């Protein structure tokens, strides 16, 4: 869909995500972040990507890039089982509420984050939260790591089949190293 010349004729909005098909390119964006945060949603607990859970990919990404972590919903339990103590536990709307404030101290009390990655939220719920950040948090960039287009994110993956997603995440991790 192209944008009309006169914005008054626009269909549903003017600012949407950029889909990044190349994991290397996404890796580059992520590496630039100074205080990244990875937010875990409950759906990544149950998604098995051929013997490895989606949440484990998230953990690996966070570790590789030294990102702070936030466990939403009931993901904390699974993270603890995986031997990971999240840096913070909030509901998704709570962490987003904090992120809106540019002067917030951040989950590690080192200043608000400049890049926030999301993994494992319901798409409808997640997209709503990303809308909040799009409108109210111009100071940060958002990335979704799920295999769906999230229109309100700054950067999103494309709609991917499971195998392609797994491949994408693996390449992304490589590029972060």
């Amino acid at each position: 869909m192209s944008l009309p010349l006169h914005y008054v004729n626009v269909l549903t909005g003017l600012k949407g995500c950029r889909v990044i098909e190349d994991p290397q390119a996404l890796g580059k964006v992520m590496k630039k972040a100074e205080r990244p945060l990875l937010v875990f949603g409950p759906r990544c607990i149950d998604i098995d990507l051929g013997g490895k859970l989606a949440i484990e990919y998230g953990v690996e990404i966070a570790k590789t890039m030294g990102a702070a972590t936030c466990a939403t919903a009931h993901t904390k339990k699974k993270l603890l089982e995986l031997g990971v103590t999240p840096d913070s536990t909030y509901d998704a709307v709570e962490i987003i509420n904090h992120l809106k404030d540019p002067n917030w101290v951040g989950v590690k009390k080192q200043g608000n984050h400049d890049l926030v990655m999301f993994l494992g939220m319901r798409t409808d719920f997640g997209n709503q939260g990303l809308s909040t950040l799009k409108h109210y948090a111009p100071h940060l960039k958002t990335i979704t790591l799920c295999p769906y287009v999230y229109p309100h994110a700054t950067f999103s993956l494309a709609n991917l089949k499971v195998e392609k997603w797994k491949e994408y995440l693996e390449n992304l991790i490589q590029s972060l190293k």
Partner: protein
Amino acid sequence: MSKGKIKEQEILKTIRAEENWEPVGPTPMPEISDLRRWDRRLLKTYKPFYAPFCDLCCFCTFGKCDLTGDKKGACGINISGQQGRWALIFSLMGCSAHGAHGRHLVDYLIEKYGEDYKIDLGGQVAVEAPHIRTVIGLKPETLGDLRKAIEYVERGIINGVSATHMGQEGNDIDFESKSLHIGMLDHVAMEVADIAQTIGFKFPTSVADTPLVPLGWGAVDKSKPVVTCVGHNAAVATVMIDHLMKNGIYDQVEVTGICCTAHDNARYSDKTKIIGPLSKQLFFLRTGIADLVITDEQCVRCDIPELAKAAGSALIATSDKISYGLDDVTHKEVDEIIRLIVEEKKQVLIRDVDKAGEVAAKVLPLVAKGRTKEILTKEKAQELANKCTACGMCDRVCPNLLKISAATSGVRDGKFENMSDLFAKCIGCGKCEQECPKSIPIITLMQAAASWDTYNVRVGRGPIHDVEIRKVGAPIVLGTIPGIIAIVGCSNFPEEIEEVVEIAEEFAKRKYIVVLSGCAAMAAGYKKDAEGKTIYEKFKPEFDAGGVLNVGSCVANAHITGAAMKVANIFAKLPLRANYEVIADYILNRVGAVGLAWGAYSQKAFSIGTGCNRLGIPVVLGPHSAKYRRLYLSRKEEDDWTVMDGRKKELINTEEPSPEHLSTVVESKERAIITLAKLCIRKNDTPQGRQLKLNHYISLYKQYMGTLPDDLQNFVRNDKDIPIVYKKEVTEYLKSVGWKPKPLLTLPTLIGTYESNIPIEAVVK
């Protein structure tokens, strides 16, 4: 009152100020901005959190205007103002639905019985209308008084709607204040509607142990003529049942209902059956089990004429709110209408309650004649699914993000497990079917995978009894009953319908008071234990620790909030009359009541929730409710939690974020349970009460999160608050996070923390 003399006189006359049941408080019949200072105080702590669903505004011909980020519309409104406007619009829609419902019942009953017809809710309910008393300042005695209350609501709605017009209100906080006001009026409207129907249709009241009625499509004897009432207004059904009895055929037919009409039918006659909540509307109507469908108002599908026709069911629409483009036959003779329905197979609109009821009763056996009702077999289902290519188009449109293709392709291959799972999570919208390029009737396939078992629901009981409040008032306020969990609202559930039962049971077992209503009350009946018992059979029906009660349909929600008000009145002896601010402040600080609307979808649910919030009752919502686009969240320990100690008249920074939020969304059942337990914490808890509340919070947190809560330090005021069973580990944990004891206070109140006409003495009794 900032009103002119004439208006003041008018108000005093309306509320019969000379009657001295209680002194007239500061805000009789408040107008839209009269409680604005209270709202602003609430919103200072619980700021609106917006998640815009739409970046644009298309309200007027200046637009569309892009409001992304800091952009403004051509009229000057910004994105927050626009979200606030939506919040007000939703509240208005919800309040209007209940208000018009109440108005219809009151007008109908006044025609029947006259305006002097007395309000009598039985020996157990002396404080008959806490909302009308508190908001309006009137002690309603007759149907005529209920009409006054509804007129007051109607006036408020006009003012509210006008503020949404382009070029009127533009400030988000003021939109929210208006939205809170309309939410408050919604509870008045619901109270009017439920009291009117209770007295007019002689529903049982002052009885806790109401009968159990059968629940589920499997409960219906389809060999009999079946009528299904869909919606929220039982007026026509009550008349129909009277005629069926008079005609001597009541026991030869099945009177069933979907959504709240079913609850109210059951209150009228426990021989009726409840099919289920809104999410099962399409599924059930598609079966064709109903020989006659009667629609009234609210939560009725817009395509029922089409559905009824396809299923071979006759249709009578009865509300001027839902006319479906049908011929209005209200003016015709009963026999002629029957002829039109039976011989010409016409679907009709009858706007006269008595006539619609009479026609329905007479036409039912006639339209049922010769109909066969076959439920889809597994073999036939497999045949219907055989063209499924597993293309996944259906998956893309499902608003509940379900994996439909796995279910349909499973059926194609003779496997039904995925379809059974799908049915348990399906919210019944029908969008998948419409998208299927192979025209596979997905909703019909569900017939072959659904359970056809019979469940049950306890008949709605209406108001909580004064004597029950007297008994539980002290334990609730002191905290030794850990909380009231009100599970309400619609059936837009994120996962299996059974989650509602699991949540309810978790709290009932822990001796909270669990109150249900509407679709949630039906959902709670859909699970049996190993002995075949539903939650309604396992727990006592009293408003007491460990009780599980169904108050009734959506309008009966007023009795849940009303119970919190009655605690302030009957137990704490605070006057209700025109005393909203004091009562709301009391509830916020001292009554550990929380609402859960796990499947909220409607604007009514939004306005009910908003009304709860103004009254100081927090609400937890399921993930779909993020699409309401507005919450009220605090910033937890980072906010200022200063309150007034009413006895010492000193401002005290309690450092305690309780209740933490006024309106929040959580994504999973596990998190919902934890959040509900936490939101029951109130500043007024005694050490014993706080220990009990923390005991549950800790044990639930451990169960679902695997550790001690990492915000525990926020809710332990001193050593005495620490639950004995967890003493050692909690003490160690508190030490590790550098916890320090917090100031104690005896009478927490927000009065005195903001500019208000209310003297602090008003909260000290």
